[in-house]
């Protein structure tokens, strides 16, 4: 699709971000920057106990506290008492029982933020502390306390493929674990709720899916959907943390009660308590292969900790289980996945969504297999690589692009970092370098590979869609295209992609992207690497409808130049894009659950100070299957950022729980990689257009996060000879203490 001659910045070009200028000037308004005259500040009271019965709540002192305008409890929730994504089991405010440390119990609104905090401390909750269930296996015991009426299993599924008892000549086995990672978007949760004259409420919010929020908020407020209007404010990153409702219902409740605007803004600590985290996992796997390394049988048991409430655990374990055999052709498999409830903080969406945990396990297994059959890690993967036409363990045939062999070969061939003498280099560049630790002979280099894949968009029959409105008009400067969707740009650059699509489809330079809100139909979630596909697709359809009308008015079959005279009156169109239908899994995990896949391969080069167990990642190289790069610079940006989050999981990021309580809810102790910890990332884009997706473009946000943790730990194993079955890896393990 060629852009009309003279129109710059269509698809395929590295167009500058349309919101870049306000962001570098500090003028871009994020949710935490929102302000309204007469606004009150909301504060949330949270349970300090991971498991307790609420016997009584005394709010009298809080009500009398200076500046307080409202104190609300569960009994004040106007409508439905619970909300949630895959199940509505999460209380807006807890009553009777609290199930995790940090669960909201009460709300306060006051004139000043400090007054709200003071009042919150005066709310006295009489808890009967109960014993928390904090271990996954304990939750599965028959005598474990039932955390929900249905018991402690959120979802259990199995995938039976071919003959699960099939014999093999070589077997390798292992049990692997990943810790609880946090999305830690820099922008903490914030929103502003403004009561409306019609008895409804307008909410200004940073979120990932306006309509999913609306669907949960309206019933809880006992309002019809048309009286709850959500407007997107600037989003300071998401990575899954904003998929679940956090303070939306709370702010609306306070606004409706006080009939004043109410702002709630979390600080960093509260943010850790206020959103879901990545599911910790324990995965047992057993791979059977021929003596030549050809996979015969993959057995897996996956266990993930869903925490206190359902959130999206069913979908996460569905993903982890259906992907558990990896991007390989496997004739026989038994894959069993279980997500459990515990009294740990709730887990849900984080970039990679179950595929990360599975990849960590299956790629460790592939390396074990490589050693067992004496093949290079790349060779054993090439030997088994999935390709278009292959059948997955779910029985789904891969019909789209699956250039796994290509990715592996290319990744392995990407330039290695120079093997310079450590004595020559700057002290900054050595493991722990900025602390003056390590340079010289104690350093060992290791190289590791990993391949993996992820579904694009939602799965198992989810009826997903996106709606777009496009308007073409003319003003004194010429033709102007306006586009509106409810799609959230979380920082990935969606608004820019949309602009590029409009330019390409309509041949118009000037494009204005309107602010998303719920006045237009749903665009679906900014997650699952789906927005370019879904909202790009909807915008494309709307543009095509507009273009058809232009051609009709002009009586031609090509877009006239100049356009101006045909744009009075303006032309508008609203269209909805849907992807092909998928299907649910049957009792044996058979079906057609995923729309499409994106594949990735990574190579990590690490240096280990073997005396101390400190690590420096020297280089990350990622080859990714992107279908078509609509904005190459943004695509690389996603790969680089996704790799950074992968490095975090591999080396330093973990929410530490003690008896269900978060020990490290701050950036002091939850360690995010700094610029001194991140290496250069070499990104390599493989463009094999995906049939059925707009422009053949695949989503790009997640695959690098899926493969990088496995690649880094593989490199550490190569450098140290240690088993390293768990991520994040600690220095103790690298020197063999643990």
């Amino acid at each position, binding site marked *: 699709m060629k852009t009309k001659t003279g129109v710059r910045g269509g698809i395929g070009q590295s167009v500058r971000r349309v919101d870049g200028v306000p962001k570098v*000037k500090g003028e871009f308004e994020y949710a935490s920057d929102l302000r309204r005259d007469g606004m009150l500040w909301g504060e949330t009271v949270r349970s300090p106990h991971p498991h307790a019965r609420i016997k009584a709540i005394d709010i009298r002192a809080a009500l009398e506290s200076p500046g307080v305008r409202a104190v609300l409890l569960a009994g004040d929730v106007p409508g439905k008492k619970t909300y949630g994504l895959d199940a509505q089991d999460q209380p807006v405010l807890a009553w009777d029982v609290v199930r995790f440390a940090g669960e909201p119990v009460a709300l306060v609104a006051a004139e000043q933020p400090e007054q709200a905090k003071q009042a919150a401390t005066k709310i006295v909750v009489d808890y009967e502390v109960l014993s928390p269930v904090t271990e996954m296996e304990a939750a599965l015991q028959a005598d474990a306390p039932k955390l929900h009426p249905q018991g402690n299993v959120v979802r259990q599924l199995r995938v039976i493929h071919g003959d699960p008892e099939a014999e093999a000549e070589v077997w390798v086995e292992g049990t692997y674990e990943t810790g609880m990672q946090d999305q830690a978007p*820099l922008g903490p949760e914030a929103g502003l709720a403004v009561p409306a004259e019609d008895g409804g409420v307008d909410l200004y919010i940073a979120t990932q899916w306006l309509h999913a929020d609306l669907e949960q908020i309206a019933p809880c407020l006992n309002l019809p959907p048309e009286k709850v209007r959500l407007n997107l404010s600037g989003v300071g990153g998401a990575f899954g943390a904003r998929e679940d409702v956090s303070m939306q219902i709370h702010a609306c409740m306070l606004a409706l009660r006080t009939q004043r605007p109410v702002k709630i803004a979390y600080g960093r600590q509260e943010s850790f308590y206020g959103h879901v985290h990545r599911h910790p996992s324990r995965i047992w796997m057993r791979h059977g292969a021929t003596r030549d390394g050809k996979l015969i049988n993959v057995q897996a048991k996956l266990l993930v900790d869903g925490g206190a409430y359902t959130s999206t655990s069913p979908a996460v374990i569905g993903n982890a289980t259906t992907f558990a055999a990896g991007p390989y052709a496997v004739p026989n498999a038994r894959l069993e996945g279980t997500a459990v409830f515990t009294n740990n903080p709730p887990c849900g969406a984080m970039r990679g969504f179950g595929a990360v945990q599975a990849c960590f396990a299956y790629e460790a297994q592939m390396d074990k297999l490589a050693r067992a059959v004496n093949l290079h890690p790349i060779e054993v993967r090439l030997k088994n690589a999935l390709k278009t036409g292959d059948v997955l363990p779910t029985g789904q045939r891969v019909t789209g692009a699956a250039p796994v062999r290509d990715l592996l070969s290319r990744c392995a061939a990407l330039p290695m970092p120079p093997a310079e003498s450590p004595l020559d280099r700057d002290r900054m560049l050595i493991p722990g370098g900025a602390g003056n630790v390590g340079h010289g002979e104690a350093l060992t280099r290791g190289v590791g590979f990993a391949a993996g894949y992820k579904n694009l968009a939602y799965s198992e029959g989810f009826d997903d869609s996106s709606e777009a409105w496009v308007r073409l008009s003319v003003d004194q400067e010429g033709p102007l295209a306006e586009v509106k969707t409810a799609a959230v740009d979380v920082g990935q650059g969606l608004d820019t992609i949309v602009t590029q699509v409009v330019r390409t489809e309509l041949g118009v330079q000037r494009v204005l992207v309107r602010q998303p809100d719920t006045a237009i139909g749903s665009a679906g979630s900014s997650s699952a690497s789906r927005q370019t596909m879904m909202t790009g697709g909807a915008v494309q359809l709307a543009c095509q409808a507009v273009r058809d009308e232009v051609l009709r008015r002009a009586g031609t079959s090509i877009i006239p130049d100049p356009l101006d005279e045909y744009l009075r009156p303006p032309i508008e169109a609203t269209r909805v894009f849907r992807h092909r239908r998928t299907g649910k899994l049957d009792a044996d995990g058979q079906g057609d659950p995923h729309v499409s896949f994106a594949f990735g391969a990574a190579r990590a080069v690490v240096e280990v100070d073997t005396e101390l167990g400190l690590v420096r990642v020297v280089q990350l190289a990622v080859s990714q299957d992107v279908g078509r790069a609509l904005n190459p610079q943004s695509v690389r940006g996603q790969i680089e950022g996704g790799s950074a*989050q992968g490095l975090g999981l591999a080396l330093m990021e973990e929410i530490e729980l003690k008896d269900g309580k978060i020990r490290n809810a701050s950036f002091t102790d939850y360690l995010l990689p700094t610029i001194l910890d991140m290496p250069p990332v070499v990104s390599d884009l493989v463009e094999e257009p995906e049939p059925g997706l707009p422009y053949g473009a695949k989503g790009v946000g997640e695959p690098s996060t899926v493969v990088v943790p496995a690649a880094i730990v593989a490199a550490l194993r190569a450098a140290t000879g240690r088993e390293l079955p768990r991520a994040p890896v600690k220095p103790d393990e690298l020197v063999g203490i643990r």
Partner: protein
Amino acid sequence: MRTNVNGEWREADIWPGASLLTLLRDAFGLTGSKNACEQGECGSCSVWLDGELVCACLVLAAQAHDRQVRTVESVADGQRMSAVQDAFVEAGAVQCGFCTPGFVVAVTHLLAQDPNPNEVQVREALSGNICRCTGYAKILDAVTLAASRLREDR
């Protein structure tokens, strides 16, 4: 108390426990500096205090009395972006943008002190600024781009 903010003396009657960040954002409406962690652990509130690069969240508003503060809002020349700001946009160093004001200030500070830093020096100078979106790769590209443009202009 009074502080000179971006060249203008401004007064505020503030609660003594307020940080400079609170003063800038809430009292003076300068919301460019961000509040991502409030403990000096991310650099998103980086500003200049008497020409020194500091975290506004760690400075008591009272410590800024009678002193000069410059924020990200002072970096652009009216409508015209600085070379550093333009380089950030051009190099693709802005994704969600929450860390961006802090980086703009830190990079501007670095290049004013050292117009030709090598990669290691750049990383060290930016070691107090966290980004969650970019993996820092394009931020480094932006610094290289800005430095070369500024050297050309000299």
